[in-house]
């Protein structure tokens, strides 16, 4: 479980997070949604410790990351896995070396154990026979899957995904969502996902938090979200007049 308490973050005069409190539960896909500029990415970067909040606390099972020294932060980060929006695969390394890197750096596993683990993770994301390929040779969806394999290779307790479906077609997006949901349940991880994608919200949103202008505006499940009939969240979900019209017809 991750708990954010009254987290505030500004950049110069721009107050991006104005006191966000939220709980992200274990074994669930916790989605953060909101318009561009609502503070989703800053929230995620505060959660993983890439940004230090100006105020507030972030607890990982009662361990406050905001109070940690650099070395403590390094240690807790070994419990993290992260899928980046642009995948952030290391260009100069093959798929296999990308996934193997955390094992090489932080474990004392033998070469054969590492190879087994890498192959297991690649199989888990349906990417067998790509070990020797380089990121530049993969499609967007394949890169995302390799990114997931790298994120889970160290058996993380916490998985963070920043816009996992950006740049993907709707069908591939569903595959990625399903994969994240399955892995979350399998390893009982606390998964936090930033997304704009309403298909993801409806598909895997065990818990959904809507951010608006740096504040938590709404919290609920994917079932609850369809009950919304007005306000900022309604405008976000049913962004176009066409969708709003469909929603009204379905209601009446």
């Amino acid at each position, binding site marked *: 479980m991750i708990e954010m308490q009254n987290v505030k973050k500004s950049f110069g005069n721009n107050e991006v997070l104005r006191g966000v409190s939220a709980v992200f539960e274990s074994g669930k896909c916790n989605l953060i949604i909101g318009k561009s500029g609502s503070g989703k990415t800053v929230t995620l970067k505060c959660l993983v410790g890439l940004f230090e909040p100006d105020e507030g606390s972030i607890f990982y099972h009662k361990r406050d990351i905001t109070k940690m020294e650099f070395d403590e932060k*390094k240690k807790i980060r070994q419990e993290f896995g992260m899928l980046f929006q642009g995948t952030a695969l*290391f*260009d100069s390394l093959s798929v296999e070396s990308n996934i193997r890197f955390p094992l090489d750096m*932080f474990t004392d596993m033998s070469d054969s154990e590492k190879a087994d683990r890498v192959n297991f993770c690649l199989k888990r994301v349906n990417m067998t026979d790509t070990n020797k390929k380089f990121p530049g040779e993969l499609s967007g969806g394949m890169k995302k899957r390799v990114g997931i394999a790298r994120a889970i290779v160290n058996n993380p307790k916490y998985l963070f995904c920043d816009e996992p479906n950006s740049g993907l077609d709707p069908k591939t997006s569903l595959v990625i969502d399903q994969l994240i949901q399955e892995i979350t349940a399998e390893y009982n991880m606390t998964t936090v996902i930033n997304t704009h994608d309403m298909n993801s919200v409806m598909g895997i949103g065990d818990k959904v938090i809507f951010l608006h202008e740096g504040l938590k505006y709404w919290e609920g499940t994917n079932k609850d979200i369809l009950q919304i009939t007005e306000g900022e969240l309604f405008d976000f979900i049913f962004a176009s007049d066409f969708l709003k019209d469909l929603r009204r017809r379905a209601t009446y």
Partner: protein
Amino acid sequence: MIKIFQSLGEYLLLMRATVSRPEKARMYWIEAMRQCYSIGVGSLPIIAIISLFMGAVTAVQFSYQLRGIGLVPMWWMGSIVRKSMILELAPTLSALLLAGKVGSNIASELGTMRISEQIDAYEIMGVNTRSYLIGPKIIASLLMFPMLVVLSVFLGISGGWLAGILGNFYSTSEYVRGLQDAMKSYDIFIMFIKSVLFAFTISSISCFKGYTVEGGAIEIGMASTQAVVQSSVIVIIVNFLVAFLML
């Protein structure tokens, strides 16, 4: 002015953070060796070509002037080329060349890694990116620059010999006599001091520029240019200071 001091402070803090206990020494060693290959072997052809012609041009131009005077024995040419190469041309011109090649390479590599979130990916894994990404580059530069400078000296001297023979300025025995004349080990010491200082200057400034990039492709280009320009200027200043204080 405040911005310069702010940058200097950030640079010093980054350099301090570079020195830390490695998560796994073997991984740092592998990365350092990779960088040695990239910086050292990757720069060999350009250093070889430039040094050979640098020595040749030095020999031709000095021979032309000494012949005009007529009072100076031509065997001095060996000594002139050797001293020029050891004290000035090999360390300084190689450094300026490497500022362009290695400096821009380091700045754009780290800048691209920053923009494409690869540095964040390392951070989230628990890697100290300052020491893992910057440390091996500086160490590789400190190891490879002096080797490249030594190679440059040998090739420059060879270039001087070749030009002299082809131009019929002096014989091989005259040139060798000059090379052996009044050889001081202190000159070699100065050469190594310069090459180590230049290596640190170029690699650390380029790492700083690349690591702290914010923005996109334009900013990476700007950081790369700044790395080359600033490290070249500092190299020239350090060169003067070493000559002024140690010769």
